[in-house]
């Protein structure tokens, strides 16, 4: 990968520029460029593959050091001594069987996450179907940082560490120092890929958790839906006397008026376009039967969200999407008061939904074209506050899908011995300094997703070059990847 922009890169980017940079170049010129590009057989980038990247955001800051736990006696004892009354029992941990190329250590999982274990060890005991790996001690960083640098503040640090909304935002922007314009890394990536890969029938950025920062682009926007489908104005099957129904008729009628004022006209057109898009998506959504995949989802909110997400993935051809991102949120992890029982309860809801989703993906034969990763505001303090844990920094996240070289703990799982001399701990209460940056994690996801060109990576992940040199990537050699969780040859550069 080099800095040099190829003719192909330029032509691929031209239609996006035509749609998105009218303030810089005249619309006519841009349209001409777009026409030329299309006439030249571009876009769409010549491929026919489809890919979906699913972000499962665990709002509240999950205590991930009670998800992935050291299992051998020595390391478990260090964990238990540090965590005291919030430590899991060693004999209740679910054993993970790492592949030989893993980090060689023994780990266990929280007892309520049996489905994660199966995805890690191999679906139905089939080691060829190891779908899940963990990234240990990952967090927001601007550049590699040591404990001394943190203490002395001699390097730029993510702003507002240990704060919910700021850290949530930074996981979604991947710009921990802040930016003049709030955009998410998936949104900036959609700015690059949407018009070259998709038919522009609907947004490629789909959210089941309301508006988020993750999918906000400069030119592209997100499409918000719930697990019953799009948020349409139609609601044909509703009671026609219902005030909402009447209100929707009034809104549609207003949008159909002819306006002489340009602002009113533009607003009406935009709203009408949005309504049409919602109805288009709802139409497709309703076209799938309930038994579209031979898998049963739990009858919970998160179960229904995953089921609807699977529907939208199956509908990619009908929606004209070769690239799609899906955002799913699941909160309730801010366990200050009590950790053990409430966390177990949340995991008991989440893990079966994750299992059903991945089984559905496999059932539809889409495992190589869907990748899911978890994210959270932050991890939590290793030290107990008297039954709960508080806001911290680095933590463990998982990534799963058919393109994953599963069964590995990647990054560096820290020594959890609690002492002032342990360089992993900063601030107070057992907050771990991340060893892997979110940029490295996201870069590898983006390589798989099909982002190409150093300038595009700079646009999407502006801090990446502080951690990783993209020019070293060889798709055949995972040791050259930012972290190394992808199988060889799952992407091109």
């Amino acid at each position, binding site marked *: 990968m080099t800095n040099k922009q190829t003719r192909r890169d330029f032509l691929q980017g031209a239609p996006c520029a035509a749609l998105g940079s009218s303030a810089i170049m005249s619309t006519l010129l841009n349209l001409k460029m777009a026409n030329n590009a299309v006439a030249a057989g571009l876009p769409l980038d010549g491929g026919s593959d489809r890919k979906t990247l699913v972000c499962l955001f665990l709002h509240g800051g999950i205590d991930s050091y009670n998800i992935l736990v050291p299992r051998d006696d020595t390391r478990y004892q260090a964990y238990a001594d540090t965590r005291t009354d919030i430590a899991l029992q060693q004999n209740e941990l679910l054993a993970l069987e790492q592949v030989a190329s893993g980090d060689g250590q023994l780990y266990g999982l929280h007892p309520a996450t049996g489905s994660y274990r199966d995805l890690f060890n191999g679906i139905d005991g089939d080691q060829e179907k190891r779908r899940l790996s963990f990234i240990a001690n990952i967090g927001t960083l601007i550049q590699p940082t040591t404990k001394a640098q943190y*203490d*002395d*503040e001699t390097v730029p*640090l993510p*702003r*507002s*560490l*240990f*704060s*919910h*909304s*700021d850290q949530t935002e930074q996981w979604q922007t991947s710009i921990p120092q802040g930016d003049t314009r709030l955009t998410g890394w998936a949104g900036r990536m959609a700015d690059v890929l949407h018009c070259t890969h998709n038919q522009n029938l609907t947004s490629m950025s789909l959210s089941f958790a309301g508006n988020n920062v993750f999918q906000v682009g400069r030119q592209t926007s997100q499409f918000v839906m719930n697990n019953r489908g799009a948020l349409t104005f139609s609601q044909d099957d509703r009671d026609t006397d219902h005030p909402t129904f009447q209100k929707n008729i009034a809104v549609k009628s207003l949008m159909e008026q002819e306006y002489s004022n340009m602002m009113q006209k533009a607003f009406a057109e935009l709203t009408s376009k949005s309504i049409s898009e919602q109805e288009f998506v709802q139409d497709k959504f309703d076209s799938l039967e309930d038994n579209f995949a031979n898998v049963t989802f739990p009858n919970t909110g998160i179960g229904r969200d995953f089921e609807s997400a699977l529907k939208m993935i199956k509908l990619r051809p009908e929606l004209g999407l070769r690239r799609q991102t899906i955002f799913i949120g699941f909160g309730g992890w801010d366990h*200050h*008061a*009590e950790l053990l029982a409430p966390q177990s309860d949340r995991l008991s809801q989440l893990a079966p939904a994750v299992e059903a989703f991945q089984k559905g993906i496999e059932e539809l034969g889409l495992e190589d074209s869907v990748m899911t990763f978890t994210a959270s505001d932050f991890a939590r303090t290793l030290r107990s506050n*008297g039954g709960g844990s*508080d*806001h911290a920094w680095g933590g463990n996240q998982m990534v799963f899908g058919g393109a994953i070289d599963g069964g590995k703990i990647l990054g560096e799982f820290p020594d959890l011995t609690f002492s002032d001399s342990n360089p992993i701990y900063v*601030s*107070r*209460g057992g907050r771990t300094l991340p060893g892997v940056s979110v940029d490295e994690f996201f870069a590898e996801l983006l390589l798989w997703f099909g982002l190409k060109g150093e300038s595009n990576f700079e646009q999407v992940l502006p801090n990446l070059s502080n951690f990783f040199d993209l020019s070293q990537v060889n798709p055949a050699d995972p040791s050259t990847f930012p972290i190394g969780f992808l199988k060889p040859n799952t992407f091109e550069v």
Partner: protein
Amino acid sequence: MKKILVSLLILFLGFLLWTSFQKGDSKEKSAGFSPDPEPLSTAQAETLGDRVLERYASSGSSGMEDLQLFEGYVQNVFLLIKNRDTRHYSTNEDLALFLLGKNTYRTAYLSPGHPILNEKQQLVDRWNTPLKVHALSSKVLELRSAGPDQKLFTEDDLVLPH
């Protein structure tokens, strides 16, 4: 005549504001954040907290009034210290140190012997239970008192902002 006097008064107040701002600014430029503030002298002048929190935990106020008083005081300190970050005050102990002088200006806004602090230098409510400090965002710091039962996260907890 009246107008002239008012104008002079405004000018004078403006000058005072400008000089105090200059002082603060020069402190900010000269002193980077230090994790270890210099020990406060025993003869130190009265701090902002001594005045503002004078009625804290007094017999004439309630637990909620205490919390409101403390929340308002913290907001005022935040207005004075613009160059700050949640990592400096996201726990009870860190917030206490921040107010005692472990901040960008190395200025104490609270005296070590103030009744809001216990012997461990934790910020406590009127029932002597440490307050729970919860960083919701860079702008909003949630404060929780355990209330009369002295147990956090129970029904009688007092929480601000609501």
